[in-house]
């Protein structure tokens, strides 16, 4: 049932009668993600009848198809065509996106309280998730690890799990990327707005619930607003803030600024600070740190 493209390594497969799953690579990397981004954006532009929904993800993507209108096998042929037309990333490919300032308090009291309750489910029952993350990633101190987490922006490479959750992949070369395992057994509790890390991905949990990612911090501002109370959500007529392809700059804040953002949220006046920009994957891959610096310049002026 699996169609393997000999020349690209892409796997096309069927998720039952209503989904087509396309895996560009088993491993995550920015070049692979950028290719999936280019393919899914192109697929969206083509507006093929029977393509009901396009779900881009990290190193793969998924399409919900109406098989009564478009045979899943015919869809795979279309996707293979688009993949070959997109080819390797061309230098002129740019993606319209935005860079968003996201305040984050690392080593915060709220996730600390929860993670200490679940030490029996963790790889290292004696320390904290940050201590463990620092150690397995070869950092001399937890503080140096925290610095690395917030040093460079992240790209939202997938949305989902629950409404509004962004999977974020740090925009740094592979050798600088953080990777941590998930909890040995998932927690039954995660605070709302927790900043977590699992595999090579950072997330913010939109709502409280179960979870298996390492807990590193807490965001003061909501990323899901079911009642669209805050202007960022009401004006966009959306209950979620982030979009696939957003660039997020996690900015470390202290307790005072955290509480200040919380007060703005409570007052209904909080707004994210963001700027629109054109992101060029090829330019980024040629000069990651320079591209990050110029994006931050756009955001913070």
């Amino acid at each position: 049932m699996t169609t393997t493209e000999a020349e690209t390594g892409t796997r096309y497969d069927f998720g039952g009668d209503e989904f087509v799953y396309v895996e560009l690579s088993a491993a995550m990397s920015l070049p692979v993600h950028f290719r999936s981004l280019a393919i899914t954006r192109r697929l969206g532009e083509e507006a093929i009848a029977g393509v009901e929904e396009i779900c881009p993800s990290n190193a793969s993507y998924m399409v919900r198809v109406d098989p009564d209108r478009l045979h899943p096998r015919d869809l795979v042929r279309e996707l293979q065509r688009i993949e070959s037309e997109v080819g390797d990333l061309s230098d002129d490919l740019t993606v319209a996106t935005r860079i968003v300032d996201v305040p984050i308090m690392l080593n915060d009291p709220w996730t600390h309280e929860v993670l200490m309750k679940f030490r029996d489910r963790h790889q290292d029952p004696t320390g904290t998730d940050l201590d463990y993350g620092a150690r397995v990633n070869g950092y001399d101190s937890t503080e140096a690890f925290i610095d690395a987490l917030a040093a460079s922006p992240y790209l939202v490479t997938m949305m989902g799990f629950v409404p509004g959750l962004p999977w974020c992949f740090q925009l740094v070369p592979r050798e600088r990327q953080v990777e941590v395992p998930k909890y040995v057994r998932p927690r039954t509790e995660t605070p709302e707005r927790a900043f977590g890390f699992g595999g090579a991905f950072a997330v913010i949990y939109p709502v409280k619930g179960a979870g298996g990612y390492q807990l590193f911090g807490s965001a003061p501002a909501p990323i899901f607003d079911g009642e669209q109370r805050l202007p960022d959500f009401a004006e966009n007529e959306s209950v979620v803030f982030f979009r696939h392809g957003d660039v997020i700059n996690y900015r470390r804040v202290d307790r005072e600024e955290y509480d200040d953002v919380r007060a703005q949220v409570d007052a209904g006046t909080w707004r994210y600070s963001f700027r629109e920009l054109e992101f060029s994957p090829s330019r980024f891959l040629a000069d990651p740190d320079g591209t990050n610096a110029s994006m931050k310049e756009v955001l913070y002026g």
Partner: protein
Amino acid sequence: MNGIRVQDPGLETTVQDTGRLGYYSIGFPPSGALDSFAYHVGNALVGNEPGAAALEAVYLGPTLEFTQDTVIAVTGADIPAFVDGEEIPTWESVAVSSGSVLSFGQLRAGARPYVAVAGGIDVPLYYGSRSTYTLVGIGGFEGRALRAGDELAIGSAAHDPKPGRRLDAGDVPVHPSTAEVHLLIGLHSYRLTDDSLARFTDTEWKVTPDANRVGYRFRGAELEFVPREQPFGAGSDPANVTDCGYPVGSVQVPGGVEPIVLLQDAVTGGGYATLGTVVSVDRDRLAQTKTGDRTRFVPVDLDGALAVRQERLAALDRIRSALA
């Protein structure tokens, strides 16, 4: 307000329709009636256009007082239903008067009864659907399961109510205690050993108590993953893959011992290897299994999956025409 007053909500009764489609890519599962056939036939029996919201209960039916005259139909699980203490036929439209009370007896087979009402349950549309998604508390009636004292409005959606519309006995689904659902193997099935994949389809899996609108967990055999060096980004557990989208109905086996079939309120993606996907129309059958029941996964290829789908949808079309 005229409509329905909830005297007793049962175990977990929610407002559901065809689901919230089009927002999967930002993390909204479809929600909607788990047993799509029972839901659609219910609407057809009371003369509703397809898509009107109905009530879905599980294991225990609710007790509902009608505060206006209307026409209802009970479908889905095999469960005795009563209006003012008199047993009423199920899979048939029945007139009820203002002040009448609908109640249920003990479940005989299946798991989820549905109550369709002429005009539909009138709750606000949320992202294009009236379906309840309790995990984040949106849609349906105040984003939650019904409670005693809730008052539901009945809608004025286009309908042609008429008591006495009946589904042919031959079309009434039976709910065997061992359900058979068709499975299209694939996705990350290569992560399991050949023996384990064979064992998956050979095993009669038992539904655990952890079976709800999010997903069904099963017990019955142990499955093994093919050892490998994990690809970058996936995490170190052999059950992990680089986080990806999960098709609705996909099957994952986190610890190798407890396969989970994701249903309409499930997470939309994550990092567990999936071994295949239940054919969409067969989620109806899973929805009518309960803790302790057994399920067999019957492998089909894509053509087989499409054939199962078409046969089931054609039957529904024929039934709708006959009831119109």
